């Protein structure tokens, strides 16, 4: 199985001067006024029996999804944009509660470093603890430590059709009562529950927790904030019903404002900055972006 040739991408990134990366620009795109490069696109190979797929970073998520669904598999990515963009910004699927964050599905990343060299992080197999887990560092790094060129993701067999339900019990009680819901959403008034699995299991789970079928999911307000799942009730109690949609169990709140969060500890910021300086001493990758300031 041959991966994607990243040598041209490496030449474009080069060794000197500010450079930015963009995909479909659904998550803000490149840094304004800075030379922008685009990573390779396309699925290099897909091996359903190994549950692994390899693609270029700027492959549209829709293209990847279509290909995986042909073999009855999926990967826990959000609905829009490119694979690399979702990884760089650590954007997750609505079904994160069941399928986990995308960083748990990243097996290998080949990237272009600030020195313009192609490097490999992680490995191609579904299990690997060979050396430090640099893939974890790159997911959510907003292209400030290296530009993702190609990724190998772990796929999973589809669990069955998603069905949406609603219930009248307290949403937190509903979430606790369910074995493994794919999503539990609440807007202060209505609860939406997504269940996946064997049709009979979904039926019996829904009737056990007294859920009724409903159309879902709701439309999300534009801004997402993160809070501790155990603080969700108190945080949302200060918000007008229907002005937000909260993801129970994961702690993401969609609303029209960015909710205040505790500052990152000063020592942690120092460590983050030290990592940035060690990886990109001249600060040439996505200049001006400092993930520890984007809250």
């Amino acid at each position, binding site marked *: 199985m041959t991966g994607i040739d990243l040598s041209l991408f490496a030449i474009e990134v080069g060794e000197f001067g500010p450079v930015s990366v963009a995909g479909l620009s659904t998550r803000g795109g490149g840094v304004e006024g800075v030379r922008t490069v685009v990573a390779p696109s396309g699925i290099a190979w897909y091996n359903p029996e190994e549950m692994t797929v390899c693609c270029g970073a700027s492959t549209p998520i829709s293209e990847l999804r279509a290909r995986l669904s042909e073999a009855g598999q999926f990967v826990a990515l959000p609905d829009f944009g490119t694979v690399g963009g979702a990884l760089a910004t650590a954007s997750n699927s609505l079904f994160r509660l069941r399928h986990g964050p995308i960083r748990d599905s990243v097996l290998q990343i080949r990237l272009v470093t600030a020195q313009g060299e192609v490097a490999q992080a992680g490995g191609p197999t579904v299990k*690997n603890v060979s050396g*430090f887990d640099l893939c974890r560092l790159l997911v959510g790094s907003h292209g400030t430590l290296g530009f993702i060129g190609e990724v190998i993701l772990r796929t999973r067999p589809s669990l069955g059709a998603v069905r949406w339900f609603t219930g009248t019990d307290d949403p937190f009680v509903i979430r606790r009562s369910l074995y493994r819901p794919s999503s539990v959403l609440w807007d202060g008034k209505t609860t939406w529950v997504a269940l996946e699995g064997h049709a009979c299991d979904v039926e019996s789970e829904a009737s056990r927790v007294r859920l009724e079928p409903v159309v879902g999911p709701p439309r999300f307000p534009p801004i997402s904030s993160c809070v501790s799942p155990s603080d969700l009730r108190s945080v949302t109690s200060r918000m007008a019903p229907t002005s937000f949609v909260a993801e129970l169990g994961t702690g993401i709140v969609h609303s029209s404002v960015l909710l205040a969060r505790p500052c990152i500890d000063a020592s942690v910021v120092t460590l983050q900055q030290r990592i940035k300086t060690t990886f990109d001493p001249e600060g040439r990758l996505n200049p001006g972006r400092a993930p520890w300031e984007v809250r």
Partner: protein
Amino acid sequence: MSAPVRPVAPTALIAELTTALSPDRVRTSVTELEIYRRDASNIEGSAGIVCFPTTTVEVQACVRASVRHGWPFVARGSGTGLAGGATPLDGALVISTTKMNRILSIDTDERMAWVEPGVINLDLSRVTSRHGLHFAPDPSSQQSCSIGGNVANNSGGPHCLAEGVTNSHILALEVVLPDGEIVMLGGLEPECDAYDLRGVFVGSEGMFGIATRIAVRLTPNPPAVKTLLMAFADTGDGARTVSAIIAAGMLPAALEMMDAPITRAVEDFVHAGFPLDAAAILIVELDGQAHAVEADAQRAADVGWTHGATSVRIAANEAERALIWKGRKNAFGAIARIKPNYYLHDTVVPRAKLVDVLEQVYDIARRHDLIVMNVFHAGDGNLHPLLVFDKREPGVLDRVHAAGEEIVAASVAAGGVLSGEHGIGLEKRDYMSMMFSPVDLDLQARLRQAFDPTGLANPRKVLPSGSRCSDGMVAHGAGLWV
């Protein structure tokens, strides 16, 4: 092999530690230092001091004292590691977390717990089971390995096929960094840090600091479980069944394979009812909700039959199921009846290459005149060839190491990786270049440098010498890892 010369720890450092902790928790006697010179691997080093902090502040005091004296330090949990990750070198200060073993809190609503690093893996699941929850990573050593050690090694276990390894189950870490700062990495809220420092700390083998409090994710116990035991007259049929089960759209909770030699050894020891005439047996466990488990158990059994299974047995009850797992998890205890010593390997290959690499493993063992047994996480392609030997036989260790290196090389050549769950430590440090280019290794070294500019946290592990780190104080030959 003769023991390395033990450098003597500075008296001033010992005095400082004694003041910070208490005299009974700072040990320097020769007999005690002997115990701590290695982990569960065959690799020996030398400990200069062993101390037993009970709080984060005490761990901080140990780290600060060590750094002040320019002395290396190594965190150690239960010492069950198999790659020499906790083996101290050059008389390092061993910071044992065994006295930090409290479960601090359990949040059953949010399915998480705060624990100290010395909590034993199985103890956590036992305590949380009354709430219908467990900690998913389940290494075979789970009766004795610690959560802190699981974090350091990003440990796996049979049930990580569906649930993922330790990194997927850690929410936050309170860490004493190598400069003595106490920080919180990660958090209970999703995406709370910029760079995922929690994620890179997991699996950093004690080289990025010492975790002193750990927030773990707990997994609900499945409402239904079915365990199948399949026998095959041909190992290849068993391996093809593994791939076919995955290809059929099932993701079992566990897919474990044992070859004939290990099955016989275990059966003599545990009496688990394993078939003795099979070339390989496959344990397939399905868990989740009742209908899906029932349907998948039937489908998995059918896949087995169509791929040449000579028998398929579904565990009739919990006792039978427990016995199957007792057999699987005690495999390594059973081999002591054959030869006194063993060397357990750990590599991963693509599932489709399992048969091919297994055949190479048998061939390698034959050429080196060694007994090899295989018990492994087939679903992950995670091989565990077990070389058994008697180290009193002259020259046998050289053969064991030569065979081991060939097994690792064969796995990497088949598109695999160096380690699936044991880590790199000292054992595979010098193999890193089989898998990574100098540019790749340089990036890993940069990360190490950012976390530990002085290079005193567990020096000279993971990264081969010649990397940019300031770890390379003493040059060691390849013969160190015995």
